[in-house]
């Protein structure tokens, strides 16, 4: 497998995971330079089509990460997001998108280390899976 730098699109919630990612950054918990973070107010706001779009545009993986259950700033947006991820995990693998390219995690504000670890692990996994070449290929 040719070594390449995967591109991971991360939809992170403004309150928890964004804070954790920031903490990971400021704590110099070096993470692979592969994440493009899209800050959403809440994971419950992540429309499935954003995730589909990211994969079709060639993201090697998509991460959706928000507050732990019970912790959502907006009460339960994260639980709604989980169902949506469940849906996509049913649909997308049917077309060859490996399930590992589609990740959801709960990462609390103080868990910078978990964020770094999640990204590191995803990067390793996706590297092993190989590049999503849709970025540079024509997609119907």
């Amino acid at each position, binding site marked *: 497998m040719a070594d390449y730098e995967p591109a991971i699109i991360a939809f992170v919630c403004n309150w928890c995971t964004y804070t954790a990612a920031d903490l990971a950054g400021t704590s110099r918990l070096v993470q692979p330079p592969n994440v493009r973070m899209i800050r959403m107010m809440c994971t419950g706001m992540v429309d*499935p089509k954003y995730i589909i779009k990211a994969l079709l545009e060639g993201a090697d993986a998509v991460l959706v990460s928000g507050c732990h259950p019970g912790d959502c700033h907006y009460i339960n947006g994260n639980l709604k997001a989980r169902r949506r991820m*469940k849906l996509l995990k049913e649909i997308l693998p049917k077309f060859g998108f490996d399930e590992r390219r589609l990740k959801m995690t*709960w990462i609390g504000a103080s868990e910078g280390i978990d964020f770094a670890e999640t990204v590191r692990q995803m990067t390793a996994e996706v590297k092993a899976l190989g590049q999503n070449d849709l970025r*540079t290929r024509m997609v*119907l």
Partner: protein
Amino acid sequence: MSKTGKITVKDRDPVSSLQDFLKLLLEKGTVEAVLVQQRLPVNNAVMPALVTDPEKLGGADPLAPAFPLNAARMLSRLTRKPLDTPIAAVMRPCEIRAFVELVKLKQGSAGNVILIGVDCLGAYGNTDYARIAASSPAVPCSNPPENRPAAEGSGHVDSGGTPPGVESTLTFHRNILSGKGTVVDGADISPACKSCEHPVALNADITIGLLGTNIEESLLLISNTEKGGVVLGELGIKEDDEPLDSRQRAVEALVSERLAYRDRMFERTSAAVSDIEKLMSYLGNCVNCYNCRVACPVCYCRECVFTTDVFDHEPAQYLRWAKRKGALKMPTDTVFYHLTRMAHMSAACIGCGQCSNACPNGVPVMELFRTVAHGVQRAFGYSAGASFDEAPPLSVFHEKEFSEVTGGHD
């Protein structure tokens, strides 16, 4: 709950006997109108029609193996505001299931609707049906002419005989009864029907049973709900609790045949789209006309997001994409559209196959969407159209569920 009665078929013509039954509904004032598949005065075509005059029911042909569109959409239009007076809707099982989904999406209300479900033995695709209906010979009518559709003004129908369309209906059913099958002139009923595991309506107040009975002699009339029972009572139809063993056997046999077909279809389709490359070739003929979603009964959006300004990309953006990819297929977003539509409706897909029926370019849309929908509904333990009470999967959630999504943590 369920009680069984009978419609005795006169002159071996179940269609007209059914028409008589429906007329009773209007004549007795049980309902204000009947929504039923009606033979159009032109081209032998059938379409749903809202009938208030009992006489006009002479054109009703709920047994025609035609399925030009899913009538749930029509019923939804009628019931977006709760009705003041009751109507009856004679529909195929898949139409009722679609209606159930639409009710849950607040696109209709079942309040004052008596749902009459007719056992479905399948239907042909629109082009096939037009051909079959047209080629079916008109036969001399055995019924008194006054009972026959007057079809005023059209002059198309020979008042002395069965219109060719109706004849094709009777032939279709006779062929099935005699074991000749459904292939006519090289055309078979649509793959959606062949893979349909719901030939019997769920959630119908009244079921008109074709399976397990000789429809040239009688049709079964089964009330499944209190509402249905009341209606049959009002019509003076005697009910008994006669066992329906033969019906059950017939249903089971048909369902198992269809399930076998369905599962082969799932397998075939899964293999045909197992990676993005294959999916693209599967959808290769799509021209982004969006007919599939217009025909889809559960795609209820007033306007699809893919036709809104959200997808009016900045002109420069096309060039940026093209630069990145070397070539950009126009129109863009084809696969994106289909995958998004799956995300939107697969939990509600009832498998009626209208998408394929509507596709101008022969993309086997139904096969693809049903295959995905099957997985999705199984994953959520949901069955589209099965119950008015079951909440759609994406409208509910629980604190503790699907922990596998987040790697076992909740």
